[in-house]
């Protein structure tokens, strides 16, 4: 009795770990060596045999589910879908239909591109003008600061240097 229980328990364990092989065996999808092992298990364990029978019964039940007939209108629908898909014009139309707001995206993109071009050239032009203006203003600043009095001072200073040079015999580099 005790021996029988142990044997049944071992069988249960073997079946639990062999379900994948029994399933594949029911499909005839095992190599020769594995198939021999499964056959031996089926001979030794009634539980394995019962599991195989369950699988085969399930397969028969699944296969017995009746098939439905597709509606006759299906072929017409397919034919018209094919005709539509064959014409590039229709494909474009379908694409527009699939994206009903496509024109908004297109217009936005065009606007962004135009804005980007305008800004880029505007900044470049502004930069060029700004550089010209800077040069002009720098020159104007120089002349504005060197007013008439400064010119007179400079001439007076040069006269003084020339007088000192003549008296001392030095040459300070001022052109006589």
């Amino acid at each position: 009795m005790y021996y029988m229980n142990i044997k049944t328990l071992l069988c249960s364990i073997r079946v639990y770990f062999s379900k994948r092989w029994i399933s594949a065996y029911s499909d005839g999808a095992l190599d020769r060596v594995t198939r021999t092992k499964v056959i031996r298990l089926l001979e030794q364990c009634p539980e394995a045999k019962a599991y195989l029978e369950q699988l085969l019964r399930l397969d028969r039940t699944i296969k017995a589910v009746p098939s439905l007939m597709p509606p006759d209108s299906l072929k017409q629908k397919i034919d018209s879908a094919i005709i539509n898909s064959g014409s590039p014009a229709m494909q474009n139309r379908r694409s527009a239909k699939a994206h009903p707001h496509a024109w908004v995206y297109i217009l936005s993109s065009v606007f962004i591109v135009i804005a980007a071009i305008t800004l880029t050239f505007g900044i470049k032009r502004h930069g060029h003008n700004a550089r010209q203006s800077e040069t002009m203003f720098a020159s104007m600043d120089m002349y504005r600061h060197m007013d008439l009095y400064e010119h007179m001072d400079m001439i007076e200073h040069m006269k003084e240097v020339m007088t000192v040079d003549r008296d001392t015999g030095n040459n300070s580099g001022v052109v006589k």
Partner: protein
Amino acid sequence: MDEDTKTMLRLKNGDRAAFDELYARFKIRIYNYIFRYLGNRYSSEDVTQEVFVRMYTSAKSYEPTARFSTWLFTIATNLAINEHHKTRHAEMFDDNSAQDNTLSTEEHAVFGNMEQNLLKIIGNLPENQRTALLLRSYEGMDYQEIAAVLQVSEKAVKSLLSRARENVLHEYKNAAM
């Protein structure tokens, strides 16, 4: 090269009649596969339509690297998954949209209670488990083909199928109790 692939190559070369042939061969399989995946007749019609339109529009780029049915079911699976995500997303914001998943009177007449329960249980499986189970049980695809559709390894398919069956058995027993 199988007959379907040859027909698809004819479509690729501009033979419009080849499209009608492929539609006639696959319409029931694709429609039912999507219906079993989504559990919604109206969405299934839309998705089936999209599958065949894609088949037509992708014909130019079609290369017979795998079986044609694998290629077509990959399209169907991807579109069904997208639709499932959309529906689930809509349901999160709109409780009324969940009502669309109920079967119509016509479908009640076709499916018994047992089938309805089964479809519901399969519909609640995780995406990859559901795809693997449907492709294996209804389409009879081998592990290599299922792996190609799901873009996973064959080992993963083995595991997905085992877990899918285990989950269905578990839920089915609970529903029967």
